[in-house]
C-alpha cells in the first residue's frame, strides 16, 4: 500500500463521523414541511376528514416529513369566493393554502392566473391509469394540464323523506316508482299539495311543497342532455331549442302552484323542517339531511331517507351530472408540490378513498375502489343513508351516462344569472298567483300569473 492510499484511507476514516453525522440528521429529522389545506368537508364530514388528516399526519406524513394543517373548512360556495379573493389579492384575503378542494370552475380561474401546479408531474401515467378516466378528464384544464385531482366525486340523486312519503302514499296510493321520472314527480307533487291542503280544511290553498331541485341550472342542463340536446351552446344558453319548454313546464308551473320550492338555499334546509319531502341534489349532500324533521312548534319526528337514481324525463336517456370538487395543489416549491402529491396519493388510495366515501356519500375515484371492493364495503357500512346512497350510485354508475358540464370563462356568471332570472320569474308569477287564487280557481289564476312569462323569459 503506498503512502497516498494510506492517506486516503486515513482521511475517509476521519470523515466517517462527519458523514454519518449528516446522515443521522436526515434520518432523524423531525423538521417536516407544513402544508396548509382548505377543504369543504364541514359539518358531519368534518370528523371523517379530521380523522383522515390526523391518520396521515401520524403515519405517512411522519415518515416523509409532512404536516397537513387544515386552515379552513368552508362551504363550497364560500371556498370558491375565498379562493378567488386570495388569488386576486383582495384586501383582507387570506394567503392561498398549499392544497385546496376546488370545483373545476374555480380551478380554471386559478389556473389561468398560473397559480396551480400541474399534477401530471406528481403522478406517473401508470398511477393515473388507476383512476376513472372521466373523473381525471374533468380536472384537465387549459390543455392536458391536470389541475384538479379527483379525490371524491359526486353525482345527483333523488332524496325522499320516506317517513312522510309513506304516510302520504298510504292515503293516496302513489308509489315510490312514480318518482323515477320528472313527470311522475310533478304529478306526485300536485297530489301531495292537495293531500296536505286537505289536512287543514279551514285554510284554503295552504298545501305543502313536495319537491325542489337543488340546482335549477344542473336540472336544466341534464334535462337537455336527457332529451338529446345541449343546454349550453357557444358559451350561452340554448333557448332556441324546443327542449326548454319541457324544462319550463316541469319547473315553472308546479313552482307557481306551490308544489315545487323556489328557494335560494339548499333543499336540505327545507327538508329539515318538513317543508319539502323530495329533492334532487348532490350525493355528497346526504350527510346534510337531518335524521329528524323539526316542525314549527319544535316537535320533531325521525325521518327515514330514501335515495333513488336521478329522475329521467319520459322518453329521455339516463343522464346525470358529474359533480364534486377535486383537490388542487397551489404552485409553490417543487418540494411542497411533491409532498402534496404524496398526500393526494394516500388520500385517494382505494382503501382510504373508500373509507372517506363510506362515511361521506361521495363516490370513489379509482376503478378498483368502485369495483368489487365497494360492493363489499357497502355491506359493512353502518350508516343506512350512506349504504342506500352507494347502492344507488352503483346502479347509476352502470346505467347512467355522466355529463360533465362545459367549462369556459363566464360559466359561473351565466349559471348565477340564469338561476336568479328563473327564480325571480317564478317568484313573481307565484306572488301574482297567490294574489289571484283566493278570488278565482287555480287554473285561471295560474293562467293569469304565467301569461307571456315563457316568451319573456327566453327572449330576455
Amino acid at each position, binding site marked *: 500500500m503506498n503512502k497516498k492510499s494510506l492517506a486516503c484511507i486515513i482521511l475517509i476514516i476521519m470523515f466517517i463521523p462527519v458523514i454519518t*453525522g449528516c446522515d443521522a440528521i436526515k434520518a432523524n429529522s423531525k423538521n417536516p414541511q407544513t402544508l396548509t389545506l382548505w377543504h369543504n368537508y*364541514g359539518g358531519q364530514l368534518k370528523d371523517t376528514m379530521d380523522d383522515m388528516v390526523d391518520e396521515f399526519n401520524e403515519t405517512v406524513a411522519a415518515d416523509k416529513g409532512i404536516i397537513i394543517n387544515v386552515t379552513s373548512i368552508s362551504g363550497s360556495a364560500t371556498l370558491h369566493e375565498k379562493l378567488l379573493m386570495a388569488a386576486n389579492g383582495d384586501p383582507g384575503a387570506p394567503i392561498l393554502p398549499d392544497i385546496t378542494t376546488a370545483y373545476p370552475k374555480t380551478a380554471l380561474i386559478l389556473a389561468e392566473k398560473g397559480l396551480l401546479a400541474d399534477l401530471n408531474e406528481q403522478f406517473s401515467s401508470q398511477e393515473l391509469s388507476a383512476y376513472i378516466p372521466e373523473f381525471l378528464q374533468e380536472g384537465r384544464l387549459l390543455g392536458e394540464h391536470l389541475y384538479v385531482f379527483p379525490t371524491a366525486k359526486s353525482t345527483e340523486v333523488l332524496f325522499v323523506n320516506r317517513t312522510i312519503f309513506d304516510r302520504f302514499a298510504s292515503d293516496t296510493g302513489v308509489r315510490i316508482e312514480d318518482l323515477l321520472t320528472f313527470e311522475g314527480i310533478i304529478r306526485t307533487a300536485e297530489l301531495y299539495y292537495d293531500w296536505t291542503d286537505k289536512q287543514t280544511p279551514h285554510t284554503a290553498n295552504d298545501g305543502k311543497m313536495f319537491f325542489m331541485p337543488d340546482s335549477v341550472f344542473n336540472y336544466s342542463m341534464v334535462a337537455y342532455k336527457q332529451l338529446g340536446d345541449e343546454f349550453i351552446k357557444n358559451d350561452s344558453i340554448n333557448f332556441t331549442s324546443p327542449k326548454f319548454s319541457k324544462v319550463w313546464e316541469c319547473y315553472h308551473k308546479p313552482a307557481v302552484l306551490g308544489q315545487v320550492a323556489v328557494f335560494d*338555499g339548499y333543499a336540505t334546509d327545507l327538508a329539515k323542517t318538513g317543508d319539502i319531502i323530495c329533492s334532487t341534489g348532490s350525493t355528497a349532500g346526504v350527510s346534510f339531511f337531518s335524521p329528524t324533521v323539526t316542525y314549527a312548534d319544535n316537535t320533531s319526528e325521525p325521518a327515514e331517507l330514501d335515495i333513488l337514481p336521478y329522475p329521467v324525463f319520459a322518453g329521455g336517456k339516463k343522464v346525470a351530472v358529474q359533480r364534486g370538487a377535486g383537490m388542487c395543489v397551489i404552485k409553490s416549491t417543487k418540494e411542497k408540490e411533491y409532498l402534496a402529491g404524496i398526500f393526494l396519493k394516500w388520500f385517494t388510495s382505494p382503501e382510504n378513498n373508500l373509507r372517506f366515501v363510506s362515511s361521506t356519500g361521495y363516490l370513489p375515484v379509482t376503478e378498483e375502489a368502485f369495483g368489487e371492493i365497494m360492493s363489499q364495503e357497502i355491506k359493512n357500512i353502518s350508516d343506512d343513508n350512506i349504504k342506500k346512497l352507494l347502492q344507488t350510485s352503483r346502479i347509476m354508475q352502470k346505467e347512467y351516462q355522466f355529463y360533465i358540464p362545459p367549462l369556459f370563462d363566464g360559466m359561473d356568471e351565466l349559471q348565477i344569472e340564469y338561476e336568479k332570472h328563473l327564480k325571480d320569474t317564478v317568484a313573481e308569477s307565484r306572488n301574482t298567483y297567490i294574489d289571484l287564487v283566493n278570488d278565482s280557481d287555480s287554473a285561471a289564476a295560474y293562467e293569469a300569473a304565467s301569461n307571456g312569462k315563457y316568451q319573456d323569459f327566453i327572449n330576455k
Partner: protein
Amino acid sequence: MNNILMKKIDLIKQEIRKTGTEAVPMNLRLFLFLLVLVLTIVLGVVVILFITGTFTAGLSESEHMIENELLHAEQGITKQYGELSIQAIEFSRELSGSIEEEAHKLGIPLSNLQDHPEMLEELISNEFDRSLFFLQRSKSSGVFFILNATINPALDNAKNSRAGLYIKNMEPNIISNSAPNIIILRGMPGISRKNSLSLHTQWKMEFDVSDAPYYHRPISAAHANHKLPLSRLYYWSTVFTLPDTSEEVMLCSVPLIDSRGNIYGVCGFEISTMLFKLSHMPNNNTFNRLFCMLSPVTESIELNKSMVAGGYSARIISKGDDTLKISENRRAFYSYRNQDNSFLGIHKLAHLYPKGSAFSDEKWAVAILVPEEDIVNSITRLNLILISLLMILVILGIILSFVLSRRFLKPITEGLDIIRSTDLSEAPRTRIAEIDDLIDFLAAHNEELYEKASQENLSISILDKFLENTQNLSPAERAVFDLYVKGHTAKEIAEILCLSINTIKTHNKRIYMKLNVASREELLLYISLLNEIGSDI
C-alpha cells in the same frame, strides 16, 4: 594500514546511518510537534465553546424564541378575549334593553317569559339585526343569545330546551359580508328564511342546555351576586362541542338582566377552534410543530378543554390521554407530558377575568409548546455541525502539519544528502544559511582531516621502511633486536644471550646501520611507535 582506516570510516558511516533509521526521523518528529500544536488549538477552541455556552446556545436560542412567541401569543389572546368580553357586555346591555322594551310593548313581563311561548319568535326575530351587527363587529365566529323559555313547554325535554338565536360566521377572518359565510345554527327557521340565510347542517331550533355551563354558570353567578356589574359576571367556557355539532368552540356568555334585576337568559360570542388557530398560530419557521394553547390550568393541562393553534393537532396529542402533566426543568423550559407525548415549552397565566369577577378563581394559561424531540434534534443538529467543523479543522490541521513538516524539512534532508556526498566543496547552495554554513564548515573540516591523514600516511611510510629493513638483519642481530623490542637493556641482552657487552655493541652498530637509525633511543622510538599502532614487528 590504509585498509584498516577505510574500514574504520565505513563503520562510522554505517553507525550514523543506523542511528538515523532507528531513531524518530526529523520529519515525523516535526509532524508530531505540529500535530500537538493543532490539537492544542482545537482543544482550546472546544474549551472556549464550552465556556461561552456555544454548545448549549441552541437551547438558549430556542428558549428565547419561544419566550417571544409566548409574549406575542399572550398579548394577542388577551386582546382578543378582552375585546370580546367587553363587546359581550355591551351586547348584553343593548339586547337586554331592546328585549325589555319589546316585551313591554307586547305586554309580557320578562320574569314570566315562559308563559308566552307564542311571542318568542317575534322577540327573537327582532334581535336578528342587532345580533348580526355585533357578530360582524366583534370578528368572532358566532353570536348567540338564549332566553329562559322554550317555544313548546309541552315537549319531553322542554326543561332543557331554550329558545334563542345562534348565528355563525364561517369565515370571521375574512373581511366580507357575503351571505354564504353567515348561517343559522340555532333559531327558528323563519328567521333564516326571512333573512335569506342558510341553516347550518347541524341546525336545531333550540338550545339544549342540559349540560351547558355557558348558560347556567353566568345565570347562577348573577343570582348569587346581585350587586356585581356585568363586567364581573361574564363567563368563558372551556373548549367544548355544542350538542349535535362537530365543531369545538369557546363561548363567552353574559347574563341578560332587565332593569328590575330579572335574569332571563344569556348572550355572548363564540371563538371557534379554527378562528383561534388562524388568529394565534405561532411563527413556525424554526419549529414546524410549534403550537400555542389556551388552557384552563391547575397542575396539569386538560387538552380536551384547550384551544390549540399550530401545526400540531391537539387531537393527536390527546389520543389516549388528554392530560398533560407540567413539571419544571432545572435548565430551561417546562416539561409537559402525557402517556405518549412529551413537550417542552413555557406558559404564562392569561387574565380572562378582571379582579372581583365571579369567576376570577378560574385560572387560564397561554402556553407555547414544541415536541421535545424537535428541540433535542435541533440542538443535536447544531452541535453536530459544530463538531463536524471542529473535525474538519483537525483534519485540515493534520494535512497542513504533514505538508508543512515535509516542506520545511525538504531542504534539510537535501542538505544532508549533500553532506553525505563526497565533494562538499563543490556542493550547491541550499539557500538556508545554517545548512550552507554547516556545509562550509564540514567542507573545511574534511580538508583538515585529509591533511592530517596525508601526514599520517607519511609517518606510516617511514615505519613501513623501518619494518622492511628489519628483514635485512642477521639472525644474531635479529635476536638482539627482538630483545630490544621486548624492552630489555643492552646489559640484560648480553646476559640473556651469554655474549659480552662488546659483542652486543658490535651487533648494535650493525643493527643501527641496517635499520638506518642513529642511536639506541631512535631505535626504541620506532619500536614504541610500531607497538602503538599494533603492528607486528
